[in-house]
């Protein structure tokens, strides 16, 4: 598969160097693969650190900036970052009010962030962690590694980031992050797999008339295959799955997120179906996002993420944010 790269070995570092060159508001440590806001951490503000494998851009590095993350750690493609990186990031954003780790629920992320939190604790930095586990395609049971952290991560980072910007305490910021996670569910579908540069070929094969249901964000196979069908039916499948897990009511924040390889024209077509479906349920879409926010390299597909808003959460969503991936109010 053709990729716009120099070599598989330098994909991540080349992109980090490019991110740094494009955004003077960021400070990028290419060697350690840690992205922070340029300048010193604000004294007394809770620092927000997240991270994960590369390949999900703009998540997480593209969400570093005012009103959202203070630091992001970039692992190898689809591979969790190592504790050293998370510790460097945690120390860099420590403004004396503690640090929140936003951790997507994958075994690797959880283990590496946990190890880093212990190391940070050894150095006297108070760390709280929130684990994001919004994906409804996986049963959260004794029989799985638990639900994956997917689209809700964007909502958690934005809303917790806004509260931290207001000077709230670590406990308060962690609580709002957990609340957003609790009130949010996602479901994703793929039309194609993606190709990890170093692997050289797609992670799985889908036939011309097949789609993959219940995907994650790491290019892995999903829960089931289905025939290709109109986007109206695909959206219904996704929203039925979400609704049966978390009944959709009241004011909603809804995201139609591209997996990286799907053009905007299709994402807007999907959004049209999402808004028709939800109008038919009597719920109100109070806020929305349509675009590429948490991707899986060049996978074609999309995910839907729905959060049941409260007035407070809506206010935090509206708060100013200035990052490469999300920008309003400033």
């Amino acid at each position: 598969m053709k990729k716009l790269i120099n070599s598989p070995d330098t994909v991540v570092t080349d992109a980090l160097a490019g991110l740094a060159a494009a955004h003077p508001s960021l400070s990028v440590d290419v060697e350690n693969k840690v992205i922070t806001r340029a300048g010193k951490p604000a004294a007394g503000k809770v620092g927000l650190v997240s991270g994960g494998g590369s390949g999900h851009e703009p998540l997480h590095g593209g969400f570093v900036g005012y009103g959202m993350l203070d630091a992001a750690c970039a692992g190898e493609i689809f591979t969790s970052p190592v504790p050293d990186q998370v510790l460097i990031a945690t120390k860099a954003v420590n403004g004396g009010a503690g640090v929140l780790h936003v951790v997507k629920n994958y075994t690797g992320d959880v283990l590496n962030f946990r190890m880093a939190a212990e190391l940070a604790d050894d150095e006297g930095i108070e760390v709280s962690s929130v684990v994001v586990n919004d994906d409804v395609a996986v049963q959260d049971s004794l029989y799985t590694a638990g639900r994956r952290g997917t689209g809700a991560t964007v909502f958690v980072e934005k809303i917790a980031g806004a509260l931290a910007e207001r000077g709230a305490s670590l406990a308060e910021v962690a609580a709002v992050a957990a609340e957003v996670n609790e009130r949010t569910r996602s479901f994703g579908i793929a039309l194609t797999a993606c190709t990890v540069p170093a692997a050289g070929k797609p992670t799985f094969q889908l036939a011309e008339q097949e789609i993959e249901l219940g995907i994650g964000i790491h290019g892995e196979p999903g829960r089931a295959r289905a025939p290709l069908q109109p986007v109206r039916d695909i959206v219904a499948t996704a929203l039925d799955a979400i609704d049966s897990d978390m009944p959709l009511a009241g004011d909603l924040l809804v995201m139609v997120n591209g997996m990286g390889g799907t053009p905007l024209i299709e994402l807007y077509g999907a959004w049209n179906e999402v808004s028709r479906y939800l109008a038919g349920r009597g719920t109100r879409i109070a806020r929305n996002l349509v675009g590429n926010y948490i991707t899986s390299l060049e996978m074609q597909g999309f995910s839907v993420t729905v959060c049941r808003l409260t007035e407070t959460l809506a206010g935090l969503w509206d708060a100013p944010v200035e990052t490469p991936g999300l920008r309003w109010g400033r």
Partner: protein
Amino acid sequence: MDAEFFRAWITEVAAVVEAQRDHLTQLDAAIGDADHGINLARGFAAVRAALTDAGPLTPGSVLMLTGSTLISKVGGASGPLYGTAFRRAAKALGDKPEVDLSALAEALEAALAGVKQLGAASEGEKTMVDALAPAVAAFSRAAASGAAAADALAALTSAADAGAHDTISMQALKGRASYLGPRSVGHEDPGAASTALILHALRDVAARQPA
């Protein structure tokens, strides 16, 4: 078995995971995100470089450097899990300049305990534990019954191979493969496969030693 033996083991592991990198990646593509081979190859290459640069070592410090380097370089779940395995083994070996079969058995048992504690996996969940647990049990039994090293190591790798093979029919209850549910059945677990490779390297290095 002295520090040179352990260095040789880990160096052999680096060679083997590089040679098997595509195979491991393919196993991980079937039920994961296609990065296991890539990650282990990168990690053990870094370990090999660290060992080359290191000064005088003991068996324990070889394994400690291995574990710490893996934690710092691999990422994912494999980094913490293999890293912890080697670090726990290292602690069990202490600073003795030479270790015998029963000390090695204790070290492998400590490694297994570390992996089970960190990853919270038991046997039957389609993970590296399914290769490591039977292998360690077989090795410990052989060592305790006074078997020669060659026989104990043969028991180690046979059990590891059988355990890795047994993962094929299991449904994954841990890790990324668990998201696939029943679709994970019919595929060998990449972590179990790499565990078997690491233990084979141990046996192969021992076999090359002059008697």
